[in-house]
């Protein structure tokens, strides 16, 4: 992997007021990869993902996307560059229908591809097609997560950022959603950066993984490697295996 990374984060420090959430974080995501970032609650995973999106912006360090420095780029411009996000807690528009949610997701995309994209999204998550005129707030948790991912895909991203898609979902639904992520990556070559607490599923899905503790990257390796590590098993997997 000597080609320049699609996304390259180097020495990023992010603060909330005086509280430092990220302490010199560096990681790379290459084209076509699924990369996961695992860590306990409060480690700074969501902060890193939001920093990549420019909200909040990093105080120091650099974020390169396709060679462009996006460290100081406003969020809405970053989201126009082929990065899409399914935020923590899904954050779908509850009073709007599934279709309307998807339509807003397509705000930054080429409108002439809307029909094609929506067919793709429905092919990936057939359940959403059945529920297309139902309001987002009345969907089940799993369906809401599917909608959040589908909504992000409507932006026609090259890089998809997912923040804890498995949060609060039943094992079967998690399998379904991770299956969809694998399919997206395998068939469309979509690059995925996946933030997860569910280390077991995430590491089995991802090509590579990073482990974050207290705002620092402490370990990195392929998914299989990390799954085999004793300290990972002890900290993130014991009792957490589904």
């Amino acid at each position, binding site marked *: 992997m000597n080609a320049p990374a699609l996304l390259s984060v180097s020495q990023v420090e992010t603060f909330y007021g005086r509280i430092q959430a990220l302490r010199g974080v560096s990681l790379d995501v290459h084209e076509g990869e699924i990369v996961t970032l695992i860590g306990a609650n409060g480690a700074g995973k969501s902060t890193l993902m939001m920093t990549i999106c420019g909200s909040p912006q990093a105080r120091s360090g650099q974020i390169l996307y396709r060679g462009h420095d996006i460290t100081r780029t406003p969020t809405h411009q970053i989201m126009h560059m082929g990065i899409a996000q399914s935020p923590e807690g899904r954050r779908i528009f509850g009073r709007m229908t599934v*279709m309307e949610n998807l339509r807003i997701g397509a*705000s930054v995309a080429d409108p002439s591809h809307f029909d094609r994209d929506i067919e793709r999204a429905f092919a990936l998550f057939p359940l959403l097609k059945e529920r297309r005129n139902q309001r987002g*707030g009345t969907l089940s948790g799993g369906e809401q997560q599917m909608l959040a991912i589908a909504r992000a895909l409507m932006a026609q991203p090259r890089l998809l950022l997912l923040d804890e898609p498995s949060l609060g979902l039943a094992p079967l639904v998690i399998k379904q959603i991770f299956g969809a992520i694998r399919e997206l990556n395998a068939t469309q070559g979509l690059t995925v950066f996946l933030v997860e607490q569910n280390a077991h599923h995430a590491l089995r899905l991802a090509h590579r993984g990073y482990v974050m503790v207290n705002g620092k990257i402490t370990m990195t390796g392929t998914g299989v490697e990390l799954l085999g590590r004793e300290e990972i098993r002890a900290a993130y997997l014991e009792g957490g295996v589904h």
Partner: protein
Amino acid sequence: MVLRGPRTAAATLLADLVVTAVISLVIFGVMVGLRTETIPGGLKLVPRWSAALGLAAMVVAGRLMLHLIWWNRKPGARSAWSPAGMMPDWARNLKLSGRFVRPATLIFALVLPFLPFTDRYILDLSILVLTYVMLGWGLNIVVGLAGLLDLGYVAFYAVGAYSYALLAHYFGWSFWLCLPVSGILAAFWGIILGFPVLRLRGDYLAIVTLAFGEIIRIVLLNWYWFTGGPDGISGIPRPDFFGIVGFERGPGGFADTFGIEYSSLHRIVFLYFLILALALLTNFVTIRLRRLPIGRAWEALREDEIACRSLGLNTTTVKLSAFATGALFAGFAGAFFATRQGFISPESFTFTESALVLAIVVLGGMGSQMGVVIASVALIGGFEVFREFEQYRMLIFGLAMVLIMIWRPRGLIAGREPSIFFRTRKTISGALVSQGEGH
């Protein structure tokens, strides 16, 4: 206490009320029914049995009401007892018949000036109602669609009114030229207000907009040499017939030109149609915008600002456009107000006006266009009907608002219609609409 079968229910109720009556008679009989007065040489007992009886009767009646309304809700019922018109079913039916109600309302509005019972009073009242409908629709963009709680909306109304009044006063510009200018100036002020409040939401936004409304009013009040201060501006030109002819009597007037008999009502009817057209324009633009990306962005902003940003929406432009669009229509309405009254002063633009318009939007059901119409008719019409009870009318309306909010917490016409469909147009089932979860 829960009452079950009708018979036992009545008996239990009666027993309960008798006990209540006895207890309250004893209490009030001693405390109110007998009064001591100092007389030379000691105290004298003055009986006041009627007052005691009256109080006891009020307590019994109150308890009866509590039994009927509050304490005997069916388990799982949505809320306290409410009149049929406030039931979700009824509201749903109203929504379903919306396809019929809307055109009917429009036709009624169009023919109203020509109906036999329509007189000057009804026309004036209708113009007033329509002005509030227009303001309500304008504010609905900001509050109902974009979810930005604006308590200073009347400021833009004032900007529109003063724009026309001052441009006419100092430069002699005509109403038809000033109408768009007033709207644009108001929209401009909408953006000016928008910038400092971009980072605020909810309560904080409400406070700042409230202050903004007051600032505009106080500036108008104190800028004496320019705005006339508390004296206001009088002699604002009345509108003419699209710049062709005026409405005055005699040769060259509207009646003379069109060969009809002069009537002082012509001007009023014209004003009526003018405000109707302006209001419909507001409605039309709102409905169109809702289906465009900008309208969807407003609604998305109301739902979740962070999600909006993560989807690449520029929340700055989304918010500013909502403020500007809302203010634009308030500006139009303001210019209309100035030309209709012929006189304006800061007194017409107090916080009460903002509160009234906001009440119309909230009462109608945020984001519902038809709801605003119903609420305007009810509130403004209601104010007129209760005109004789001057000192009680705010009391009555306060009470009415509280009751309606208990019965229909999301406004008279709750729920929203989706603005986009997949292939076939399929309405969201009523059950989903009237529940109102996920906000």
